[in-house]
């Protein structure tokens, strides 16, 4: 295709992505380097018949002048990145000096909002992703060996947890594990502890969020593996059988190598999706026990005081993490492309 035709064909979607994905990226970088202006406060003396009183007021004109002079706000450099809400360099240093054991140091780090969010985000990503692959594979193998007639309905119900709106799916599970819900009551009677509540316990909340993550994403791995299983070469399988391979050996040496590229694909998609874990934390009202990077940005942006600079700084750090996460994939793709 000629350069010119290519240009006209991709122009509309390029424009959309430039304006609403690329420019916002620039915007968060700029925002994270500036803080909003303080209002200019002046003190005025009011003198009346009963003497003079001092009062302070906002000098609107001066504030406006300051804002129009520097529309981005006051240049702060890397200050926002280093403050307590983000990388918290000073606090980490103190914790490092003040704590005797690793355990103590870790506990202190978890009190800092950024590291708290980071620890859950990473745990969630790296626990859910392998579990999704494992369960997805098991379900795919099971469905594949089921009778043809029931496969359609099986696939239909399997798709539901993935198709459902994340916020809504998490709510449905949350209502069931509520202390007054069906699963919650079952847990209480099983453990014999009437005060057991997912809402009140950090480890239980983490487990519940991870359970939700696996429930939501396992269908994706299932569908991909299931499609892969349909294309396993039956001649190879038969040849292996004639050569005396047992069932386990046939799976190990024929089926698994066939599915390996699919596993890379699933792992890549899952890493990207799990890293942005956000809606379940809102649905489970879990923020006291578990926060994620996305939730931290949401929290800064919401409410009466929109802390744009703080949100922007967290966003920049998130983007950096995403790029680090994707680097191995990008390098591999680049090498593959160079070889062609």
């Amino acid at each position, binding site marked *: *295709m000629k350069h010119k*035709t*290519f240009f006209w*064909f*991709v122009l509309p*979607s390029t424009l*959309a992505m430039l*304006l*609403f*994905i690329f420019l*916002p*990226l620039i*915007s968060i970088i700029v*925002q994270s380097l500036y803080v909003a202006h303080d209002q200019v406060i002046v003190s005025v003396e009011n003198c009346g018949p009963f003497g003079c009183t001092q009062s302070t007021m906002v000098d609107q004109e001066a504030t406006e002048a300051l804002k129009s002079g520097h529309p981005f706000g006051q240049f702060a450099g890397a200050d926002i990145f280093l403050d307590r809400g983000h990388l918290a360099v000073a606090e980490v240093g103190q914790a490092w000096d003040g704590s005797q054991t690793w355990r103590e140091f870790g506990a202190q780090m978890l009190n800092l909002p950024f590291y708290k969010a980071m620890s859950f985000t990473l745990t969630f990503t790296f626990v859910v992703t392998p579990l999704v692959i494992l369960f997805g594979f*098991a*379900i795919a*193998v099971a469905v594949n060996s*089921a009778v043809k007639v029931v496969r*359609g309905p*099986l*696939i239909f*119900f*399997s*798709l*539901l947890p993935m*198709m*459902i*709106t*994340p*916020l*809504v799916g998490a*709510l*449905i599970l949350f209502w*069931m594990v509520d202390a007054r*819900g*069906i699963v919650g009551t*079952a847990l209480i009677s099983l453990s014999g502890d009437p005060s057991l509540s997912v809402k009140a316990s950090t480890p239980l909340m983490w487990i519940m969020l991870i359970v939700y993550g696996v429930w939501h994403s396992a269908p*994706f791995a299932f569908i*991909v593996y299931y*499609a*892969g299983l349909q*294309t396993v070469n039956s001649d190879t399988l038969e040849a292996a059988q004639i050569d005396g391979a047992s*069932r386990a050996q046939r799976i190990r040496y024929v089926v698994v190598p066939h599915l390996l590229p*699919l596993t890379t694909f699933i792992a890549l998609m899952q890493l990207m999706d799990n*890293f942005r874990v*956000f*809606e379940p934390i*809102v649905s489970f009202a879990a923020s006291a026990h578990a926060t994620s*990077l*996305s939730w931290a940005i*949401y929290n*800064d942006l*919401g409410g009466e005081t929109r802390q744009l600079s703080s949100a*922007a700084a967290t*966003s920049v750090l998130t*983007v950096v993490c995403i*790029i680090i*996460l*994707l680097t191995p994939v*990008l390098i591999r793709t680049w090498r593959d492309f160079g070889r062609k």
Partner: protein
Amino acid sequence: MASRANQKPFSLTLFTIVVLGVWMMLAAFPFLWTLWGSFKVEGDFFSKADWAAALTGKMTVSETGGQYTGAGYYGAWVQEGFGKAAMNSTLVCLFVVTISLTLGTLGGYALSRSTYRYAFWFLIIALVFRALPQITLVSGYLPVFFKFNMWGHLPTAIIVLIAINQPFTLWMLHSFFKNIPQDLDESAMVDGCNRFQAFRHVIIPVMWPGVITAGLFSFLLAYNDFAVTTMLLSKENQTMIPKIASFLGTTQTKGNVMFAVSAVVSVTAPLFVMVLVFQRQIVSGLTAGAVKG
């Protein structure tokens, strides 16, 4: 093929049945349970005393006189104006799907036909964009939208969702167009069409299966979105998902939790129908990227 060599040992059959049974329970039961519970009162669906109350509906009978009650639905749709939110969601989905498909087909087609290196880099950058959490972009929009008075309106959210949708749509349609043989449009060009005419007369008539699949996923993204719509829409313009979230925040008084339960069921119903009708397309769409690499 049911030869003796292929016959499964009993333990394997048992394993299959157990896995499928447990999985079906996990996948389907939560939905059925919530659907059932949405017709009860709060005292039954969230029963401290006895979980079986949700089945027998003791409180529902004593409070409303019947086994089932539509009070939750009445509260959500009539009292809280969920209908307006449903209308907004419909508008958002309609525009997002049509516009992002239009842009995506043009771009995806060009990317599948170009053999230059920049087309490859274009796709890689799109992949990176696809990986960014939506909420990071939202914090980039807010100051600009406030400044130009664009915040809170439906069209703003629609444009943003279209743009966020582009990387995924481009990837999916690109791999789909790769499967349409090049000879098709090239022979049209030999016959004197230019590139756009070839696309218009030869490719468009055969592209619908792929476009429908990509459209389904665009629809899902727009319908399921929470991060963008909750941050960029004012209270009057909310779509369904942020509306449900606001039920949770503000109306925790007795009985109003059931508004949220009924709203959740109402949101899920269209998705059910969609999966039922388009199961085949969804499965093919999910595997398109994987099987072709």
